[in-house]
C-alpha cells in the first residue's frame, strides 16, 4: 500500500520501511512513526467506535491525551486492549485491531444505539430497568455488560516480565519540552544530580512539532543538540519513554519506563516495562499544556482533530489526515497549523475563526467571526457547515478539520496530593494552585507560560530556584515569544449533540440535563454523566464541560468548581505494578534445612506462611494421603518419628533482666525457671487474648531461647521489641532472632531416646534421670558438632527437639534416618503433627484464633495474678470471665467413623438448629489412627462442665449432622505419663 497522505520532511527514518497491520490490512510505515501517524499517512481515519453510541471514531490528538484512537495492540497472549494509537511507537510487524465493534469497524451493529441516543441520555439507566425486579440480573444487565466495555483481554496469562526499580536524584524534571530541557541544562551544568523523564520516545516536546526556530536552529534541532549535551553529562540521567505517573508523599514519584513496547519481541530476560520509584529532593513539572476543543454539532467525526495534532502529524511525522483541511479556532495558534499545513502542500480550505478581528493571511482563506455549526460524513468527515457573521452558511468540503479552543496547562501532578488548581482569567485556564506537593515546582506551559521563549526562561529559572543555584542566568536562545491571547470560546451556541467526552459519549446536552436534574457540582456532573471517566480521564473534556456547567448555572468557572486529577497520569498495566512478584515469586519461599532431603523422599509440601513444609511422606503403594498420615502417626507413637520443626520462631533473649522481661511478656511466671530447664509459655495480647504460645529454655541465668509458633514468629519478635524499647526501656535485655540458624527436629516416640543416644556424643547423659522432661542443654553430636537438645513434646510422647547449625541439618536428618532404621523410624509431616497434637489436646493455630482467652483454652490458671504481664488486666473483663464462656473440649462422634468437620457448629441434641441455639464450634478435626475414630477439638459454652454430654455437630454448609460426645481434649495419655518416661 502506498502512504498516500505522507508529506515531506519530518522526523521519521524514510530509509527504512516497516510493515504493520490494522484490522488485518497490511500497511507500511517508517521508524519514528506512531501507529497513529502511520494510519493517517496511509489514509486511515476510522479507527474505533465510541463507548455508548458506537459512533465512528478517529484520532483526536497526537499524544497521550487521546480519547478516541484506541485499539487492541498485538495478538495472542500479548493482546493489549485500549492502547492509544497516538503513543504507540511503530515497529516492524506491529499488529492492531479496532475494538468495541461487531461485526466490523465499518458496520457495527450497536451503531443502532446512536439512533436511540435520545432515550439513552445521561443517567437514563437509574430511572428504568426496575420492572420486573428479577429482570435486572437476568436480562437487562447481561445485555448492558456485553455492550459496554471497550477492548477485550486474551484471558491468557501475561507472558512478559516487568521490573521495579529505585532511583534517587536531586532534581527530577518531568517533561522534556523547551522548559524541561532548559531546566535540565541549567541543573546539569551546575553539577546537580538530575533525572529528566519524558513519556515520548523523542525528547523535545512541542519543539518537535513546530517550524519556528530556537536561536539559529530549527526548534527540533535545538532540542536534539540539548539532548546531546545532556547525554554527555554523567550527573544527568535521561529517561525517555518514561511517564511520571504520580506524585506521592515526601518527594517520591512513580514513573513507568516502557523498555520493551517499541520492539516486536523482547530479548530473553528483559522487561517490557519498569516501574521506577524515584526519590527526589526537588521535582520540576514541565509537562506542557494540552489543546482544548470547541464543542459544536457532530464534532466527533473521524477527521475532526485538535489543530495542534494536525500540526504535529505534519511537521514531526510528515503525515496528514487529509489533503483538504479546514481549521476552526478561537485563537492565533490555530493559524499556525494552517500555515504549516499550507507550507507542506496540504490544501487549507479555510480557517474559521470565531473572532471578528481574526488575523488575515493571504495564503489561505480566513472566515472571521464564523463558526462551525455542523458536519457531515458517516465514517469520516466530508463536509463542514459554517455559519458566517452575516447569517449565511457555507459548506466546505474537507477531510479533516483542526479545532483549537486554546490551551490548558497540564496541572495533573500538582493535584496528586489533593492540591486544587486555580483559575487564571488572563489565560482563561486553570493553572497550578498554591498547594503543590512538597518539593514540586512548575515551569513552562504547565505553569501557564505559553510562549517558547517564556518556557525556556521559566525552565532555567525554576531549576536554579529549586536547587538554590546562585550561578548567573544562562544565556537563553532567542525563540518565539508570541503574547498570549486566550479568550474562551467553549461551544457553538445552539449545539446539542456536541461531544465533550468523545469516548464516553457525553455531549453538551448531557451537561445541561445534569444541571436540570440537580447534579450541579463537578463531582456530581462527572458521576452522573460519566464525563472524564474514560481511558483519557477527561484530559481534553473536563474543563470544557465545567465551563458549560458554569454558563448554564450563571456562575463563573471558579465558583462552579475545579476538577482535580488522580494518579496515574496515564493508565498503567497492572502487571507493571506487580513487577516480579507474581506466580511462584509472589512471596519469597522459605525452605527448611531438610527440604532437599524431603524432596528426595517425594514428600508432599504445604505452604505455611512463606515456608514450605513437608505435609506427609507417601510411600510407594499409598494411594490416599490418609494412609501415609495414619502410618506416620502410628509409627511415631509405636516407636519413633522425626519431624522438621525449624520453622518455629526462635528468639535469643539475653541480659541481666532477661527473666524479668519474660515475666512481663508471658502470662505465666519465668523468674524461677532453673538453668537447664524449659517451660511452656503463654503470651497474651494487651487486650487479654492469647497471642501465641511456645517455650522458653533457660540456657544460663541471663540467657533464654524462646520459641514461637511458625505463624507468629515475626509478630512476637516485633511485640517483644515493643515491650523492650517502649514499655521497659531500662531493662537490660537483648533480642535477636535465631530461627534460621538452627535446624531443629522433633524426635518423638517411645524409642526417641534410644535413637538420639546413637548420635549424641557419649559424654552427654540424656537418660530420664539426667535429662528429665523439660530439660535442655548444649551438647555435641556425631563426634563433636555443637547442638542443642530440648526435652519437650508436642505429640504427647517421650520426645526431644534437637538443633544443629542449619548447614548440617540435611546431614543430620539423613543420619537420624539411617541410625533409626533399627527402630523403624519414620519421618512425619505437618499433617501427622497436627493429628498428634489434636489427640493430645494441644491448642494450635485454629484455637489461637485471636478471639480466645487463656480461660477459653483451659489455660486460665497459667495467667499469674501476682505479677504485671501484658494482657493480664484486660483478660479479666466481665464478658471474658462469665461462667458460660467457651471452653476447649474434645469432640468424639458417637459412631467413630462419622466425620467431624472443623468449622461445624455444636447444638443441643434437641431443639431448633439455628444461630440462637448455637453452643459453640469445632476448631480442629482429624482422624485418630490410635483411637480408630474421628475426633475434634472445639470451643463450647461452659464446656468444662459438659463432659460426657451428647450434642449435635451440624455443618449445613457441608450437609452434615453428627451425634457427638463432649470429652476431655486430652484423648491420648491424659496423665502425661508417656512424655515423662
Amino acid at each position, binding site marked *: 500500500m502506498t502512504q498516500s497522505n505522507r508529506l515531506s520532511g519530518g522526523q521519521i527514518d524514510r530509509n527504512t520501511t516497516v510493515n504493520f497491520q490494522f484490522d488485518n490490512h497490511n500497511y507500511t510505515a517508517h521508524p519514528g512513526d506512531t501507529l497513529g501517524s502511520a494510519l493517517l499517512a496511509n489514509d486511515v481515519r476510522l479507527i474505533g467506535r465510541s463507548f455508548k453510541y458506537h459512533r465512528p471514531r478517529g484520532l483526536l490528538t497526537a499524544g497521550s491525551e487521546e480519547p478516541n484512537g484506541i485499539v487492541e495492540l498485538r495478538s495472542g497472549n500479548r493482546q493489549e486492549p485500549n492502547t492509544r494509537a497516538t503513543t504507540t511507537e511503530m515497529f516492524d510487524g506491529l499488529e492492531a485491531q479496532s475494538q468495541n465493534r461487531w461485526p466490523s469497524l465499518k458496520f457495527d451493529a450497536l451503531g443502532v444505539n446512536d439512533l436511540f441516543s435520545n432515550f439513552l441520555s445521561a443517567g437514563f439507566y437509574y430511572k428504568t430497568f426496575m420492572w420486573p425486579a428479577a429482570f435486572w440480573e437476568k436480562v437487562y444487565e447481561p445485555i448492558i455488560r456485553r455492550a459496554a466495555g471497550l477492548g477485550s483481554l486474551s484471558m491468557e496469562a501475561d507472558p512478559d516480565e516487568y521490573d521495579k526499580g529505585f532511583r534517587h536524584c536531586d532534581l527530577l524534571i518531568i517533561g522534556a519540552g523547551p522548559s524541561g530541557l532548559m531546566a535540565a541544562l541549567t541543573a546539569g551544568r551546575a553539577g546537580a544530580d538530575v533525572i529528566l523523564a519524558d513519556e515520548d520516545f523523542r525528547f523535545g516536546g512541542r519543539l518537535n512539532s513546530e517550524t519556528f526556530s530556537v536561536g539559529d536552529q530549527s526548534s527540533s534541532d535545538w532540542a536534539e543538540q540539548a539532548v546531546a549535551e545532556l547525554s554527555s553529562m554523567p550527573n544527568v540521567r535521561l529517561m525517555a519513554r518514561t511517564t511520571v505517573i504520580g506524585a506521592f508523599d515526601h518527594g517520591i514519584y512513580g514513573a513507568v519506563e516502557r523498555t520493551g513496547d517499541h520492539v516486536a519481541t523482547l530479548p530473553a530476560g528483559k522487561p517490557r516495562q519498569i516501574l521506577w520509584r524515584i526519590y527526589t529532593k526537588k521535582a520540576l513539572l514541565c509537562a506542557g499544556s494540552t489543546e482544548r476543543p470547541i464543542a459544536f454539532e457532530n464534532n466527533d467525526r473521524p477527521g475532526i482533530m485538535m489543530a495542534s495534532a494536525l500540526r504535529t502529524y505534519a511537521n514531526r511525522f510528515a503525515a496528514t489526515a487529509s489533503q483538504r483541511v479546514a481549521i476552526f479556532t478561537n485563537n492565533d495558534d490555530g493559524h499556525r497549523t494552517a500555515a504549516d499545513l499550507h507550507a507542506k502542500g496540504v490544501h487549507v480550505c479555510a480557517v474559521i475563526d470565531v473572532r471578528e478581528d481574526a488575523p488575515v493571511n493571504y495564503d489561505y482563506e480566513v472566515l472571521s467571526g464564523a463558526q462551525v455549526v455542523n458536519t457531515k460524513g458517516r465514517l469520516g468527515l466530508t463536509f463542514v457547515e459554517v455559519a458566517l457573521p452575516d447569517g449565511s452558511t457555507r459548506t466546505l468540503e474537507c477531510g479533516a478539520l483542526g479545532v483549537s479552543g486554546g490551551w490548558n496547562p497540564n496541572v495533573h501532578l500538582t493535584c496528586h496530593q489533593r492540591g486544587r488548581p486555580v483559575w487564571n482569567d488572563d489565560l482563561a485556564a486553570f493553572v497550578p494552585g498554591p498547594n503543590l506537593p512538597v518539593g514540586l515546582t512548575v515551569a513552562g506551559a504547565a505553569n501557564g507560560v505559553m510562549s517558547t521563549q517564556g518556557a525556556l526562561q521559566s525552565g532555567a529559572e525554576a531549576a536554579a530556584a529549586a536547587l538554590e543555584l546562585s550561578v548567573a542566568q544562562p544565556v537563553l536562545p532567542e525563540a518565539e515569544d508570541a503574547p498570549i491571547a486566550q479568550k474562551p470560546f467553549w461551544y457553538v451556541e445552539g449545539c446539542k449533540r456536541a461531544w465533550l467526552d468523545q469516548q464516553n459519549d457525553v455531549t453538551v446536552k448531557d451537561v445541561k440535563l445534569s444541571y436540570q436534574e440537580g447534579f450541579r457540582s463537578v463531582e456530581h456532573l462527572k458521576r452522573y454523566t460519566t464525563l472524564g471517566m474514560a481511558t483519557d480521564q477527561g484530559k481534553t473534556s473536563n474543563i470544557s464541560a465545567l465551563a458549560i456547567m458554569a454558563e448554564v448555572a450563571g456562575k463563573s468557572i471558579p465558583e462552579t468548581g475545579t476538577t482535580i486529577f488522580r494518579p496515574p497520569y496515564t493508565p498503567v498495566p497492572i502487571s507493571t505494578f506487580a513487577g516480579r512478584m507474581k506466580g511462584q515469586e509472589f512471596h519469597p519461599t522459605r525452605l527448611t534445612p531438610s527440604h532437599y532431603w524431603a524432596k528426595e523422599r517425594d514428600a508432599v509440601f504445604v505452604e505455611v506462611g512463606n515456608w514450605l513444609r513437608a505435609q506427609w511422606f507417601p510411600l510407594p503403594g499409598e494411594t490416599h494421603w490418609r494412609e501415609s498420615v495414619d502410618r506416620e502417626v502410628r509409627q511415631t507413637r509405636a516407636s519413633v518419628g522425626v519431624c522438621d520443626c525449624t520453622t518455629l520462631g526462635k528468639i535469643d533473649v539475653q541480659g541481666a533482666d532477661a527473666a524479668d522481661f519474660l515475666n512481663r511478656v508471658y502470662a505465666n511466671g519465668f523468674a524461677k525457671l532453673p538453668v537447664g530447664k524449659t517451660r511452656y509459655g503463654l503470651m497474651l495480647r494487651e487486650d487479654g487474648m492469647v497471642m501465641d504460645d511456645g517455650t522458653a529454655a533457660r540456657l544460663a541465668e541471663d540467657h533464654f531461647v524462646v520459641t514461637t509458633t511458625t505463624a507468629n514468629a515475626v509478630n512476637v519478635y516485633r511485640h517483644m521489641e*515493643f515491650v523492650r524499647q517502649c514499655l521497659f526501656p531500662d531493662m537490660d535485655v537483648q533480642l535477636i532472632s535465631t530461627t534460621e540458624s538452627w535446624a531443629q527436629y522433633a524426635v518423638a516416640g517411645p524409642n526417641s531416646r534410644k535413637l538420639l543416644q546413637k548420635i549424641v556424643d557419649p559424654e552427654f547423659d540424656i537418660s530420664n534421670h539426667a535429662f528429665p522432661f523439660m530439660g535442655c542443654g548444649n551438647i555435641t553430636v556425631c563426634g563433636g558438632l555443637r547442638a542443642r537438645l530440648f526435652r519437650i513434646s508436642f505429640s504427647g510422647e517421650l520426645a526431644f527437639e534437637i538443633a544443629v547449625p542449619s548447614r548440617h541439618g540435611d546431614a543430620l536428618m539423613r543420619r537420624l534416618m539411617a541410625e533409626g532404621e533399627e527402630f523403624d523410624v519414620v519421618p512425619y509431616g505437618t499433617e501427622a503433627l497436627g493429628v498428634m497434637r489434636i489427640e493430645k489436646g494441644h491448642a494450635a493455630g485454629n484455637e489461637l484464633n485471636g478471639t480466645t482467652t487463656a480461660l477459653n483454652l483451659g489455660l486460665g490458671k497459667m495467667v499469674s495474678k501476682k505479677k504485671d504481664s501484658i494482657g493480664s488486666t484486660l483478660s479479666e473483663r466481665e464478658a471474658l470471665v462469665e461462667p458460660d464462656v467457651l471452653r476447649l473440649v474434645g469432640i468424639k462422634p458417637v459412631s467413630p467413623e462419622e466425620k467431624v468437620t472443623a468449622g461445624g457448629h455444636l447444638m443441643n441434641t434437641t431443639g431448633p438448629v439455628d444461630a440462637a441455639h448455637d453452643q459453640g464450634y469445632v476448631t480442629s478435626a482429624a482422624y485418630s489412627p490410635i483411637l480408630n475414630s474421628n475426633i475434634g477439638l472445639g470451643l463450647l459454652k461452659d464446656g468444662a462442665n459438659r463432659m460426657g454430654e451428647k450434642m449435635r455437630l451440624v455443618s449445613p454448609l457441608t450437609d452434615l449432622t453428627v451425634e457427638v460426645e463432649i470429652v476431655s481434649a486430652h484423648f491420648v495419655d491424659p496423665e502425661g505419663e508417656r512424655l515423662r518416661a
Partner: protein
Amino acid sequence: MIINHPLLGPRDASEFTYLGDASLINRPDWQAEDAAEAFYEYGYLRDNPAGEHQELWYHEAGDRSWLVVTRDTTTHEISKVELARDVARARGRSK
C-alpha cells in the same frame, strides 16, 4: 512516605511497620485503683487527631528500632522523628 530515621537518615516508610498512637507507650500501672478503667482507655480510646499525631513505627526491615514519628494526618508532613526508647524514658518509663 519517607521517615527520617534519627540514626539511619531518610528511609522509605515501607520498611516500617505501623502500630498506632504513641500513647501506647503510656501503659497504665496494673496495681492502680482504677487499673481496669485505665487499661480500657489505654487499649481502646484514641485521640485520632486531624493534624499533628505522634505515632509508633517499627523499623522492621531495618535496625529494629521503634520510633515515635510526629506526623500531620492531613498532609502527611513529618515534623519530628525520635527513638521510642528515648521518648519512653522521657515519659518516665524505666523497668
